[in-house]
């Protein structure tokens, strides 16, 4: 399927093999700029593996992953190191199992995310060591940005608490705030709604939509919670056993028999029979 419009991320023929196990098999899809693209599929479909390939934590066996900035600069992510993808290509991510810095306060977590601009401002530490004003200003600006995001996720009162002390839902929000502090053009959220109740999921939806609207961040989302997927995605890509079985709008996906079969574990023959009956 070709990618019309303005794709920010193009994945072409991506395959990931671990020894004899094929986790992803010839996957191609694209995510449009300014869209919220959801990656769904049953457990073990390879969704987090796709994320790890995009963000550089795995090195793909085969394939190309292209990230295009609005000003035309492109990056081939399958060749970049993980931290460069975050730093240069400005792709941020959250983790399925939440990876905060638990012994550091929430504020410190958000400041660490701004490490690169702060390092430059501190003259790679030298100017900072000498206490020059240029660093002090930069640090104040960084703290302001951290405060902004803390406010957006509603955790201002927790700024000085150790991140490991926070309840699960709040830790998730800190992780998202931390990712946003890196000013990403593409934000990859790995099951952000896991463990959230209905009200919290609705708040998450609002937060993500707000990020897209105000900061023009494109979002790639892995999710099992269909209220989130259906509520906010512009486009959905469905994986099963490492293979893309459908790509389309949320409504189209909802009704596709292959997708339903994949989630419910129906035999392939039954799917074909159902399709034949319906006349597909």
């Amino acid at each position: 399927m070709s990618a019309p419009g303005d794709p920010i991320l193009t994945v072409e023929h991506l395959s990931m093999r671990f020894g004899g196990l094929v986790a992803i098999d010839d996957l191609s899809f694209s995510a449009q700029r300014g869209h919220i693209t959801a990656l769904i599929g049953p457990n073990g479909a390879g969704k987090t593996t796709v994320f790890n390939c995009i963000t550089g934590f795995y090195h793909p066996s085969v394939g190309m992953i292209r990230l295009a900035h609005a000003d035309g600069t492109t990056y081939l992510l399958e060749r970049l190191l993980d931290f460069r993808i975050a730093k240069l290509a400005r792709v941020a991510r959250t983790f399925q199992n939440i990876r905060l810095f638990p012994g550091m306060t929430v504020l410190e977590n958000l400041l660490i995310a701004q490490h690169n601009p702060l390092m430059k401002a501190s003259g790679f530490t030298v100017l900072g060591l000498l206490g020059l004003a240029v660093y002090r200003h930069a640090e104040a600006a960084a703290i302001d940005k951290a405060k902004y995001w803390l406010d957006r996720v509603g955790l201002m009162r927790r700024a000085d608490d150790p991140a490991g002390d926070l309840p699960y839902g709040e830790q998730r929000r800190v992780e998202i705030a931390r990712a946003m502090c890196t000013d990403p053009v593409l934000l990859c959220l790995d099951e952000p709604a896991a463990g959230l109740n209905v009200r919290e999921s609705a708040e998450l939806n609002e937060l993500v939509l707000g990020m897209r609207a105000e900061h023009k961040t494109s979002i790639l989302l892995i999710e099992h919670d269909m209220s989130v997927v259906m509520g906010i995605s512009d486009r959905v890509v469905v994986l099963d056993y490492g293979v893309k079985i459908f790509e389309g709008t949320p409504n189209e996906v909802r009704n596709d028999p292959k997708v339903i079969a994949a989630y419910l574990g129906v035999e392939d023959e039954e799917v074909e029979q159902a399709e034949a009956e319906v006349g597909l």
Partner: protein
Amino acid sequence: MEYFCQQLINGLALGSIYGLIAIGYTMVYGIIGMINFAHGDIFMVGAFIALIAFLALVAIGVTAIPLALFLVLLIAMALSALYGQVVERIAYRPLRHSFRLAPLISAIGMSIILQNYVQVAQGARVKPLPPLIQGGYTILPSESFPVQVSNVQIIIVVTTLVLMAIFSWLVANTRLGRDMRACEQDLKMAALVGVDTDRTISLTFVVGAALAAVAGLMYLLYYGVIDFFIGFVAGVKAFTAAVLGGIGSLPGAMLGGLLIGLIETFWSAYFSIEYKDVAAFSVLVVVLIFLPTGILGRPEIEKV
């Protein structure tokens, strides 16, 4: 050529000793992911126990060398196994869920304890023993440099082979072996399916210690002199062997041991004997930088 063959034989004998110690390192690392820093010193303790047991047996009248050595072997294995068990219970088990540095520091402390305990108990001087097993065979007669295999060397290699065979059989076919392999793959899961992980881990230490004791006895017979410090250097070399062969792999440990023995022997023979320890340590550095999974090891995927 003859010189080369002789060094080859010497290297294999030395390598067998390193291999026996390396098995202890590789098993413990495989099962709980920790370098047992004190393992080299268990080897040293085993050598001392062997020495003292021998002298004691001679003193009470057991003069037939083969019988005495056999008894010494059993005693050394049993008592070293006890040391291994006690060390694990005191210094490692309480820290199993603690942060990463804690068992390492504890192990270093245990190593210091063992070295100094032996030094205090037996004095700092070296302990010599007259050669108990004499003679050998000339396998390549030559005027300039006959190649010889001594009986000690034969005993070392044969004992090692026998123990390896027993041990491999144990790991592959017994309940204990299966438990060990399960714990090595996934400790939590093994506990959940009913494996007594504490006991399995203890037994791993125990078996490793027993093999190290055999190595200690072999060392004593081969070199004829021991002191309280032999554990440190032999320990690092044996650990190098374990890594070189592939950590977690039993045949790897033996293979690594033989390779390290050969490298050390050839280096001393052809280059310089003062720097032979540097050669062994450098091999460790090179292997860890370029081939961290070793020759027979399995590459690990980082799960993100």
